[in-house]
């Protein structure tokens, strides 16, 4: 089996087109997409100053105090500027013309909040998020007051105790985004290597010699599959190392997280190779026609090429999207849960594919 693994690796590394498509091309894509599309796909938006006019009409005394405290807290952050107004209509006109960014009206008892949006999409999102946060907090405080008023008195510094600020530690760019998505792309593309590995032996007619040899077909099947793994590991390693060292792409902050990421992508590649081998054994359609279009579509709608192309209700069900999410969770936030789930699911799929593939290879006859 070792001889087969060595042979596979030698063959792969000596094919110049493989070197380009599997090693150089993905690294180039990270660089090209990361730089050329940086202006289209911004990883971070600068919100800038947000100017809000607000009005207060008929709210309770407690709500009044809460609103005032909330506004004061935001003003302390130095980029939110609130002005109280009695002339809501004029303020709305001003927001429509872009003179201010939003108008917020706090009214009635129980309190209702009306937001009149301005012209800037990002600032509108910001105002909505903040007011949504305020509403949730207000509701929570209401519930506590109704059930256990003493809790608020006993925990005066609840905000500092319960809200933790986490510094990401790295200034993220689009290079980081594409380093992950290109890695995901290459791992999923491993299905093609798996699909053509037996097709290649058949085309070169060497499959006959392999099958005549006194080596069990199961060993042969596993040898071929395992023989494809070193080149995939090399491919992941090269992409990680070169995109970081040459272009300054960032993965995770800590070494352990990066090892976890590498392991996750290795397992995904192995799964894809196994699935490809099953395809190659059972389906007689050229994988370029049978697999590649599906893969491209999946990648397209998973935000692999642009993070803006994500379809609500579809993308999150695509495996590529899920893998990218797991990778981002790991690299940006240091969270391992999704990555672990991906690894477990992939191992189960690999096992099933290997059993299914070995059975098929065992039964297949040369005509």
């Amino acid at each position, binding site marked *: 089996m070792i001889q087969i693994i060595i*042979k596979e690796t030698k063959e792969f590394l*000596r094919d110049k087109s493989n070197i380009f498509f599997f090693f150089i091309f993905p690294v180039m894509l990270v660089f090209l997409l990361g730089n050329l599309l940086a202006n289209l796909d911004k990883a971070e938006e600068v919100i800038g100053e947000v100017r809000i006019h607000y009005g207060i009409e008929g709210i309770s005394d407690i709500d009044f105090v809460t609103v005032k405290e909330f506004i004061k807290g935001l003003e302390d952050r130095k980029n939110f500027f609130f002005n109280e107004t009695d002339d809501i209509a004029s303020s709305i006109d001003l927001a429509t013309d872009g003179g201010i960014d939003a108008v917020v009206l706090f009214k009635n008892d129980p309190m209702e909040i009306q937001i009149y949006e301005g012209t800037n999409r990002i600032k509108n999102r910001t105002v909505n998020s903040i007011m949504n946060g305020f509403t949730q907090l207000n509701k929570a405080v209401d519930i506590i007051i109704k059930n256990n008023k003493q809790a608020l008195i006993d925990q005066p510094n609840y905000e500092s105790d319960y809200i933790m600020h986490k510094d990401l530690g790295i200034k993220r760019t689009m290079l980081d985004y594409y380093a992950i998505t290109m890695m995901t792309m290459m791992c999923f593309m491993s299905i093609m290597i798996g699909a053509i590995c037996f097709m290649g032996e058949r085309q*070169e*007619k*060497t499959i*006959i010699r*392999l099958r*005549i*040899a006194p080596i069990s077909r199961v060993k042969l099947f596993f040898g071929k599959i395992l023989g494809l793994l070193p080149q995939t590991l090399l491919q992941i390693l090269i992409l990680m190392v070169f995109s970081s060292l040459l272009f300054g792409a960032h993965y995770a902050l800590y070494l352990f997280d990066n090892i976890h990421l590498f392991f996750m992508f290795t397992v995904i590649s192995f799964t894809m190779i196994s699935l490809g081998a099953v395809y190659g054994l059972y389906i007689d359609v050229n994988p370029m026609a049978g697999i590649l279009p599906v893969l491209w579509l999946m990648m397209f709608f998973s935000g692999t090429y642009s993070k803006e192309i994500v379809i609500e209700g579809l993308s999150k069900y695509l495996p590529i999207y899920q893998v990218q999410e797991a990778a981002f969770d790991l690299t940006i936030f240091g969270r391992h849960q999704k990555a672990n789930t991906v690894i477990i699911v992939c191992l189960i799929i690999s096992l099933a594919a290997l059993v299914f593939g070995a059975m098929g290879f065992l039964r297949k006859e*040369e005509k």
Partner: protein
Amino acid sequence: MSYVAVENLVKKYGDITAVDHLSFTVSKGEIFGLLGPNGAGKSTTLNIITTLTDFDKGKVTVDGLDIREHKAEIKRLIGMVPQDIAIYDHLNALENVKFFASLYGYGKSDLTRNAMEALEFVGLSDKIKVKPKQMSGGMRRRLNIACGIAHKPKLIVLDEPTVGVDAQSREHILNSIRLLRDRGATVIYTSHYMQEVEQICDSIAIIDKGQLIACGTETELVSMVTDVQTVFIKTKIPINFEKETFEKKIKLMPGVKGISEEDSVIKLDISVEQNNIGHIIQEFINFGLPIISIKSELPSLDTLFLTLTGRELR
């Protein structure tokens, strides 16, 4: 003593019967030619003998071992040289031969030695570092053979090993096959080049539509379709030669089927069984006809093959 025995072999692909109650034996240490038109069932038969394909009915033994019961042992005895060149383009000659020999469980030192011997045998010992892409068609063919014999098989199956090679390479390949036989290997050989088969095969089987049509040595096969051989006697005809009397006398001799003359060459059709050539030559002398040369011709294997399998295109 038969080394390979095929008895009542049947192989079907759906409704198509590729091999239909086929039986033949291959003696130990002989070169056995398996002939047949395209689609006759040659490849299926070879695939069955080499354990690549299972069969529906019948029995196949190699070296006395039943192919179904002793598949693993039989695999070790067989070396296959497929019709299509089955080598890896990205590995050099030595790496190719070593890889295929390694599948037979050889250790590192044995592997290199056997691979070198095989390459030397096919005349490629000076090309060990050359990749197949840089080789000529004939060299690739010879490498294809080396890959099939490096593990020193006792039964070598060669499926059209000389397709598309130049005269020198062909001669080298045919001599190598003879040498393999002389070293004790049993060879099953298929080819569409009848001349090659005539040249190297000790016995021949012709199959068509999955059935055995004829089997035996070349002479035995020829005698199956005709008992007439043609003898050409070149002479110098004197001025006073009594042609009619001479021809009448010869025709009356037992075994003579016909006589004709053209440009001082007398053509005689005579029975293979009642070969009367000695008496015929005596009559030439009696009539004062000097014998310059004698040439005898049996129908060629080509003619025999076409007679047995038909001339229509398939």
